[in-house]
């Protein structure tokens, strides 16, 4: 923090301080105008945080207004701590995804751990019990030729730290980590992404909002004590590009998470709510008390007085502004009627959670900060929360390629068999088992499908139905075409849900992009949001909440644009949840859907070192949606043995995954000539599904959607032949045959990159 300390009470920060805190000159002048004078230290600190990109969404808010947020299932939309959809039986599911990218780049273990802690608090802040966590991670390439191995070693350190941090927090607090995804791509090397999604369950009438109400009511802070952690942390860090050098120096500002404290806080919050003791509740996240108190006041159109001398501190000599901006973890703020304060504090004591009445709701419309009764900051709530200027983006597509081609790791003359093994062992496609074995995926006894058993996680509900959830985004394809790539990401989540038999209910998203003040990044963001809105509208899966993380750039350029999509759906009968693996020898295998793959922007193209194409083939969203509906219904009626969508690595990799998960081989014949073999085997596109089951059941499905029987389950190898009836090369020929054991060995490649050293607490 650059604000100059002084012994007296007359602290007068300057324009230079404001600029150093991230405000522009014009914004500072607007603050002065709103205040009717220059802001003092406390006020400037609070304005600079609430008017940061992180809190005010000043470059994305206008764009986000175009997204669909309403629908028949939506109970709570964007604007609250998390969104919520009705899941039947009187229950709602709250969910949201959030990023903790910059803190994780500095200290991956604590950054990821506190990311999980933060998203869990968002869920229980609206009165829902957290029931699952998923994570979405992006790192640079984890392997490199010897000369570059130091960089790859740093990537592996970040991976190890982030995974350990997620596990440490989720496992210790008793919330299962049921799914997730990780990609390794060069553009993330200096700016990794750590996004965490959480789901919670609540009674429909048990949800609580965050609006402060009732002048005279008491503001109670409970949870951990307040220290200097994260001062200038998430909020300031999150709005500055990370340099290659100096990242280590920022370590002291990273917050430290304590899942044990949060577990007590969670149980305490839910018990306070179930006893009806709270008027409203809000968690403390980025910008700490500043943002929590101001937002509660803004939503309730009231004022709040806070006396920093009443905040329990971990360090005695903290300045008022430090108390107001501290990002100490595991804290909640609630509004309580005066007659209930004693009962609230008593319950805090039961759960061994600190609690203190620190302020009052007023009718002044002002956010006032006091120290032992003396006024040290006084701002209009509206100015703080709502009057930050919003900026129009200046989108312009770049005429030059933004991203260098990846290094080739597969020879152009590789055989299809060699290519399949290379894909199966590539960092993006190899088995995630070494990662998800670090996570408790079964606590709370709801997990019907664990990681790798199905395309989406499935969680049983009390009435016999189930939730399904998936998180996804292929940033490389979004980089090739932000509009189409984002539609693909949304369709991929819905496809995962279809494979377990679930219909989408709602969507959350985390828009991870570079610096939006640069026209080509603004273009990526604008195009991605356009695709996101269209796809969610088409699927009737409205967006109930989300997060934006901008300025994700390193010295060598921006990250791939990465709009991470999280989607929640419901299936009527948990017992019918689909599985990914082939199950029965003799089952027929079908490729379903209008599937028109291409090699451009595929995993194979990456391994061959090909540059990104300029654009992806257009998608017939309606056709994909119809295919998904047919697959969903077939799975739901238990007509299939397995269902898996064709994604990265194309049909051959999808087949291999079904074989490996099921522990049984397959014999498949594809119609393709030698010239189109690679496209048929490894080409990628939306809309393809790989199903297995009784031949008659599959043929019946073929009456509704495009379907081709391509083979039979059985043996202990995957065999793929091509057949073509062209004049020059007609006939059938085997193009690859690989034993399950060899595919399994290739697929286990992540273990070698991961799991040595690190820490588990």
């Amino acid at each position, binding site marked *: 923090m650059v604000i100059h300390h002084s012994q007296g009470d007359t602290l007068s920060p300057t324009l230079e301080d404001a600029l150093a805190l991230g405000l522009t000159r014009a914004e500072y002048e607007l603050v002065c105008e709103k205040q009717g004078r220059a802001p003092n230290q406390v006020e400037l600190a609070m304005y600079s945080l609430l008017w940061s990109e992180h809190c005010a969404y000043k470059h994305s808010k206008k764009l986000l207004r175009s997204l669909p947020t309403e629908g028949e299932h939506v109970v709570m939309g964007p604007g609250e701590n998390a969104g919520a959809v009705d899941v039947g039986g009187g229950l709602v599911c709250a969910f949201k995804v959030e990023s903790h990218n910059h803190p994780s780049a500095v200290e991956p273990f604590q950054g990821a751990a506190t990311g999980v802690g933060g998203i869990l608090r968002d869920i229980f802040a609206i009165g829902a019990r957290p029931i699952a966590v998923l994570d979405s991670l992006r790192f640079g390439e984890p392997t490199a030729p010897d000369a570059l191995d130091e960089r790859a070693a740093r990537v592996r350190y970040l991976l190890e730290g982030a995974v350990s941090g997620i596990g440490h927090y989720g*496992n210790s607090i*008793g919330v299962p980590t049921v799914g997730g995804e990780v990609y390794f791509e060069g553009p993330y090397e200096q700016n990794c992404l750590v996004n965490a999604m959480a789901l919670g369950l609540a009674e429909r009438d048990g949800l609580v909002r965050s609006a402060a109400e009732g002048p005279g009511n008491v503001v109670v802070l409970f949870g951990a004590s307040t220290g200097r952690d994260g001062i200038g942390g998430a909020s300031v860090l999150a709005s500055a590009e990370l340099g290659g050098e100096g990242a280590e120096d920022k370590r002291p500002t990273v917050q430290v998470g*304590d*899942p044990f404290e949060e577990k007590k806080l969670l149980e305490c919050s839910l018990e306070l709510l179930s006893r009806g003791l709270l008027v409203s509740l809000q968690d403390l996240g980025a910008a700490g008390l500043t943002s929590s108190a101001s937002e509660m006041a803004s939503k309730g159109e009231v004022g709040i007085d806070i006396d920093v001398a009443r905040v329990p501190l971990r360090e005695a000599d903290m300045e008022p502004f430090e108390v107001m901006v501290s990002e100490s973890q595991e804290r909640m703020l609630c509004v309580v009627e005066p007659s209930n304060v004693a009962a609230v504090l008593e319950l805090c004591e039961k759960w061994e959670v600190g609690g203190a009445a620190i302020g009052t709701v007023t009718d002044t419309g002002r956010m006032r900060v006091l120290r032992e009764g003396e006024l040290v900051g006084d701002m209009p709530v509206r100015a703080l929360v709502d009057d930050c200027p919003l900026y129009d983006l200046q989108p312009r597509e770049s005429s030059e390629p933004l991203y260098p081609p990846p290094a080739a790791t597969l020879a152009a003359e590789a055989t299809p068999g060699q290519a399949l093994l290379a894909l199966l062992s590539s960092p993006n496609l190899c088995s995630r088992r070494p990662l998800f074995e670090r*996570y408790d*995926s079964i606590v709370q006894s709801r*997990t019907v499908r664990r990681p790798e058993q199905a395309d989406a996680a499935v969680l049983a509900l009390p009435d016999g139905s189930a939730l399904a959830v998936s998180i996804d985004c292929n940033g490389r394809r979004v980089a090739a075409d932000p509009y189409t790539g984002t539609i693909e990401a949304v369709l991929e989540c819905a496809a995962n849900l279809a494979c377990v038999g679930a219909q989408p209910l709602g969507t959350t998203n985390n828009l991870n992009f570079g610096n939006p003040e640069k026209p080509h990044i603004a273009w990526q963001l604008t195009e991605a949001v356009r695709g996101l809105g269209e796809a969610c509208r088409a699927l009737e899966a409205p967006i109930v909440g989300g997060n934006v993380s901008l300025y994700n750039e390193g010295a060598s350029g921006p990250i791939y644009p990465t709009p991470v999509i999280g989607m929640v759906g419901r299936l009527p009968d*948990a017992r019918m949840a689909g599985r990914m693996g082939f199950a029965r020898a003799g089952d027929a295998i079908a490729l379903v859907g209008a599937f028109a793959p291409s090699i451009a922007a595929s995993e194979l193209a990456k391994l061959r070192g090909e540059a990104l194409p300029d654009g992806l083939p257009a998608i017939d969203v309606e056709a994909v949606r119809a295919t998904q509906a047919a697959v969903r219904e077939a799975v739901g009626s238990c007509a299939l043995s397995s269902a898996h969508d064709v994604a990265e690595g194309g049909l051959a990799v999808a087949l291999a995954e079904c074989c490996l998960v099921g522990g049984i081989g397959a014999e498949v014949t594809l119609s393709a000539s030698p010239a189109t073999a690679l496209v048929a085997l490894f080409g990628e596109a939306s809309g393809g599904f790989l199903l297995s089951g009784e031949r008659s059941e599959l043929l019946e499905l073929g009456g509704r959607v495009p379907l081709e029987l391509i083979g039979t389950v059985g043996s202990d190898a995957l065999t793929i032949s091509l057949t073509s009836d062209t004049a020059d090369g007609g006939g059938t020929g085997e193009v690859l045959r690989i034993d399950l054991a060899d595919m399994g060995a290739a697929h286990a490649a992540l273990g070698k990159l991961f799991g040595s050293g690190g820490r588990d*607490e």
Partner: protein
Amino acid sequence: MKFGVLQFPGSCDEVDALEAARRVGDAELIWHGERDLKGADAIVVPGGFSYGDYLRAGAIARFSPAMESVIDFAGEGGLVLGICNGFQVLCEAHLLPGALLPNENLHFTSRQVEVEVLSGGGAFTRACGPVTHPPQRLSIPAKHAWGRYYAESETLAAMDGSGQLVLRYAPGENFNGSLHDIAGVCNEQGNVFGLMPHPEHAVDELMGGSADGLRIFESMRMTVEGATR
């Protein structure tokens, strides 16, 4: 038949244990600060991270008022089952011999494991049927960071002699480095049993695969009802 399931700050699997116990009898949670065991016929010390596992897993929970009552209850012959963190608590409380150390791989690891039912601890395994050769197997998930069972070699020899070895990881399944592949042990009297895998997470085939863990709870019911009949 009534189970009492302890609840510490930081317990995570107490509701899972409660629901599993309810499949074979009544069950109620017992807050760690209470001394009254509410007339329970058997006690479950559940999994989780009591007191954040700070200091050592189970080291702080062991001194709670409820645990003092459990120590008396066990001394009078009452059945006590400790699962995962509960096993660690029972070792720290000296109700069971030995100690649990950090996994050999140093990581929290979550995996479905096969365990073999040995001759000891009949009060907790009788519903598995007669002990066979080769031993019967149960498929139960394990998930922990501190599961490496350790006891001094003389202690281990004595435990083997007096039928205190109850469950052993099947060949290839011992991921935590436990001595002699030990997954679960009981005390000399046979009324206190601790294991690292989670039987309460294997009570319903819908949830991932096996209902083998239910037999542990069923065995406890048979033992209690046999004793009171």
